[in-house]
């Protein structure tokens, strides 16, 4: 009796975790550059019945096994392209294709992001929405008139006095195996200790994605998929709780064998 209770409980716990993941995806559906998380399930170990003194007919070399439930096997982030939406702001950049922006954290580490909302700081560097500067050394005079960024990342600034300034190139960084990235919040990802840092690349070159000025990359969360999975998880949660109720009834029958 105890075992089927725990199997049912494992079902409820696993579905609960999946619902948590779905809730997080839905909460971040409008977050720039957010990449959805996917929870996948896997069976737990099985137990051969003849080894625990259960009445089984000898099977030869094949064992009758009963499973012990389910668990969340992996919670991976899926790095597919999000949809690109137009904002018209001159320092909003969307990456269409592969690549990440690199920013420098206050503690000296490098972080990577797809969030392209930039502004020009007091010292002329490009700063993202959380206040972290882009790691590349780019100077833009804070009192500029207008700014144009080409799909390859070349910055052309029309300064306050009307002259043109070529301010450099915005590098993109290519991370081949993005499943290694750890999300640290604020739309930032870091590579674990000991991993080689990626080399900088130019947008549009060697398979790197293009930059689009005036656009932002929305999340890659698909509302319909998430809702369907939510309904699914809810139903299995319900069935798991039903199995716990039935096992409880059976156990109570065993307890009432002798009044």
């Amino acid at each position: 009796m105890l075992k089927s209770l725990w199997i049912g409980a494992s079902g409820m716990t696993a579905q609960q975790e999946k619902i948590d993941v779905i809730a997080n995806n839905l909460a971040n559906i409008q977050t720039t550059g957010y990449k959805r998380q996917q929870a996948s399930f896997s069976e737990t170990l099985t137990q051969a019945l003849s080894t625990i003194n259960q009445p089984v007919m000898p099977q030869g070399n094949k064992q009758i096994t009963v499973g012990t439930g389910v668990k969340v096997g992996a919670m991976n982030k899926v790095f597919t392209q999000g949809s690109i939406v137009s904002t018209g702001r001159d320092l909003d950049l969307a990456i269409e294709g592969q690549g990440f922006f690199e920013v420098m954290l206050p503690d000296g580490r490098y972080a990577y992001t797809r969030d392209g909302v930039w502004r020009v700081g007091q010292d002329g560097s490009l700063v993202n929405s959380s206040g972290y500067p882009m790691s590349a050394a780019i100077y833009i005079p804070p009192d500029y008139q207008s700014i144009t960024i080409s799909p390859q990342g070349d910055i052309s600034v029309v300064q306050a006095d009307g002259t043109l300034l070529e301010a450099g190139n915005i590098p993109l960084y290519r991370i081949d195996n993005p499943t290694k990235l750890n999300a640290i919040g604020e739309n930032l990802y870091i590579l674990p200790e000991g991993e080689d840092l990626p080399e900088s690349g130019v947008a549009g070159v060697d398979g790197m994605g293009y930059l689009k000025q005036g656009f932002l990359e929305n999340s890659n969360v698909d509302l319909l998929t998430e809702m369907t999975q939510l309904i699914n998880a809810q139903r299995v949660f319900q069935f798991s709780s039903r199995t716990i109720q039935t096992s409880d009834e059976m156990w109570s029958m065993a307890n009432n064998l002798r009044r």
Partner: protein
Amino acid sequence: MIRGLYTAATGMLVQEKRQENITNNLVNANTAGYKKSQLAVSSFPEVLLNRIDAINGSSKGVKPVGTISNGAMLAAQTIDFTTGSLEETSNPLDLALTGQGFFTVATPQGTAYTRNGSFSLDGDGYLVDSHGNYVLGLSGPIYLNTTDFTVAKDGTVTVGDEYVDTILITNFNDQTQLQAVGNDLFTALEGAGPRQLDPAEVSLRQGFLEKANINLVEEMVNMLTVLRTYEANQKVIQTQDEILGKSVSEIGSLR
């Protein structure tokens, strides 16, 4: 009397195991590639009953009366390998087999097989399943180190234009000889006859997962059957208990 108690108890034990099996099927309703397991119940082998008989006045003599079975036990486990329906996830690391065959993985205990195509990349960039076992291609573990790869319908893995490997899909001559070992894995017993499935017969979809092949309604009905059978067995034990009680306390009592 006592024999009757144990016979009914085996009935309850067997139903408990069936309940565990049904519960396991139900909680794995969302596990990719899960194959439902069914337990078959049969009666114990029959034993001969003898009646001690008085022949010609003497008190010796044994006369066979007939056979009786002493309860129920689990006879066999059938794993239903019907293909489940597909679910689109758009995750390039999710693969689904829409036809026959199994993915082949290398575990520390040897080669195992699975239908759960929810894969990821490990720290070194190799394709692994959700337990960290290498997914095998024709030339061994598959080194990718990128999520930007394509898997064709016949299992060919390419990164850009470069061919990497072909995923090894194993088919069996006798699927009943597969042993379920948990963690979504099966091992091949003698007589299973594993052989590589010809790439022309392989049918893989990237970005999809195979759903569990359980039928929720069927499992719920099975669970109801188990519950009521358990209840009936409980009644048998209680009745046996009452009869025993009468024979102990009332037969031969002086009043």
